[in-house]
């Protein structure tokens, strides 16, 4: 039983990261009906920028570690949001009226561009975050040994997801985003500036992806320019699992995917971990083709 809970916490930490990245996919899909394949690479950019800022500004030395990491996170979010907005302006806006396939190809191209640009800037070798930024403390929860960082990752993910949820539900711009998701033309007729809404989506999604990249860098230490692909694929799966276009769905899907992976590895076979996770996805999609929370079309974002 102890092993079960240990695996559950392993899965929750991984799932929290998946969920944060999945939010970016799901928001863009909700508004544009576009799978932003470059999103995984925005996540990678976040982890690289985090490393650069961390080593060049030595924030964690000047401020308390916790405050330093917080400032760092805000800076990374801001920078990656700018990259996301640029991406939208350069690669997607010119194709707004073209067939959907063109935009998907453009997204794949942007993904290849980003990962190779990172390789050329930072080099092909693995980059490593300096050690000991986050305290290596383990918390004892009912006799279960859980590293504090894992709890912080999950907590930070949940807080950001909830903040996003309330932002979308309660604010004016959130309402505009929801309206544009339902019907862009109708939203335009109601006086909503759809281009501005889309820009907002491309600021928020990449910011969350970027901060997920920073968390991966801080916790796992090792980053490289290809890692966005695997994370992107998993997060995309999570978004579909929860119902793509649906924000709570992305959260549930991400966390669920992480937990399924961990438990599948624990009780079935490690080598079959991905097969199990994707098998579950197929079963869920057969039973519920719109994903777990995908039926609430009126609230789609």
């Amino acid at each position, binding site marked *: 039983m102890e*092993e079960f809970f240990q695996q559950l916490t392993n*899965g929750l930490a*991984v799932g929290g990261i998946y969920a944060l990245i999945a939010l970016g996919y799901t928001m863009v899909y909700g508004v544009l009906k576009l799978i932003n394949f470059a999103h995984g690479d925005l996540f990678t950019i976040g982890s690289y920028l985090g490393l650069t800022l961390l080593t060049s500004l030595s924030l964690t030395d000047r401020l308390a570690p916790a405050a330093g990491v917080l400032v760092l996170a805000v800076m990374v979010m801001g920078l990656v949001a700018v990259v996301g907005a640029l991406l939208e302006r350069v690669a997607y806006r010119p194709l707004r009226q073209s067939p959907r396939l063109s935009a998907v190809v453009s997204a794949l191209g942007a993904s290849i561009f980003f990962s190779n640009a990172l390789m050329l800037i930072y*080099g092909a070798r693995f980059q490593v975050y300096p050690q000991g930024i986050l305290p290596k403390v383990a918390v004892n929860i009912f006799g279960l040994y859980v590293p504090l960082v894992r709890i912080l990752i999950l907590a930070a993910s949940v807080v950001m997801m909830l903040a996003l949820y309330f932002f979308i539900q309660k604010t004016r711009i959130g309402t505009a985003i929801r309206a544009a998701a339902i019907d862009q033309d109708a939203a335009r007729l109601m006086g909503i500036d759809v281009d501005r809404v889309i820009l907002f989506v491309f600021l928020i999604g990449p910011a969350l992806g970027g901060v997920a990249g920073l968390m991966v860098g801080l916790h796992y*230490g090792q980053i490289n320019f*290809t890692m966005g692909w695997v994370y992107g694929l998993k997060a995309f799966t999570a978004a579909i699992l929860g119902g793509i276009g649906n924000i709570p769905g992305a959260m549930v899907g991400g966390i669920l995917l992480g937990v399924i992976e961990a438990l599948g590895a624990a009780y079935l076979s490690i080598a079959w971990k991905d097969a199990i996770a994707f098998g579950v996805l197929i079963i869920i999609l057969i039973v519920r083709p719109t994903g777990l929370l995908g039926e609430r079309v009126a609230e789609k974002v």
Partner: protein
Amino acid sequence: MKRVFIALMALCLLAGVPTLAAADSVKIGLMGPMTGPWASEGQEMKQVLDLLAEDLNAKRGLLGKTVEVVSEDDGGDPRTAALAAQRLATQGIVAVIGTYGSSVTEATQNIYDESKIIQIANGSTAIRLTEKGLKYFFRTCPRDDEQGRVAVQTIQKLGFKKVAILHDNTTYAKGLADEAKGLLEKEGVEIVFYDALTPGERDYTAILTKMKGASPDVVFFTGYYPEAGLLLRQKKEMNWPVPFIGGDATNNPDLVKIAGKDAAEGFYFLSAPLPKDLPTPEAKAFLAEFKKKYGNEPASIYAVLAGDGFRVISAAIEAVKSTDPDALADYLHNKMKDFPGLTGTLSFNEKGDRVGEVYRVYKVDADGNFILQP
């Protein structure tokens, strides 16, 4: 007037270009992972070959011609590699050096064989690559059955009774894991865990937690250094003190960077000797020259093994005084004996495998240095 000019230009192109390209140089191909997860290996392979070719051209060239290294990127991926091999095969190369990963090499073997191009792999240790009877295939790295044997020897010497084996489902890692498993079972050592991870991920705690449940004395990981580094780091975070032994793909200084010094300490791995432990005078001179040109010594032994591939093929071309692939293959198989390579003496058997013992056991010390074990 304009039309005459264009026609003249076209004639010049038709007549001039092929002769220029064909006559003045001997082309040696390099296929390596310049991008992708193993890009650091590939880029160093290129540095080594560029340096060796420069040296050769400064001295005498080959057969009175200059040597040209034509490199293609295999991306560490079998599909990309097949395309790279097709491109190389049409560029008039005599031989190709590379590549690093066994599954990547395997995807290109037949392409080179059909084009009668000598292929000398530098890091592909999977057994079956040389069991296909391909006449033009050689490798300067040793084979996994040899590595498996040394691994089992080491495990027994260190007195471990319960062993967990973890691989990553690549041709190389699974081959080595199977080899070691068979040998260990024969010796009566208990295998308490045998499974594969997915390379390229960041979180391996689920696997470590499961492995811990099997309570092995030692874990033998046959995959590559990025995953090995993460496993060591996350094992340390779990407070699990089990010793790890790695295969020769964990031999890369980045392992310590990824794991952190405190987590990497005590990690054993098998490998051909590291560049710094190479005993031959050729190697010492080469390393000094490499450092002069690029600012640091080569980090990876596989880049140096690629250099040996280049040296072997250029020696063969000199010896047979031609670039005929059959003559070269025959020379490498039968006539080359104890060629003084950078990584020790080189000879090839009839399968194209390197003859002789190459593997050593290394241990990581507290400062993250790789220490050769006696």
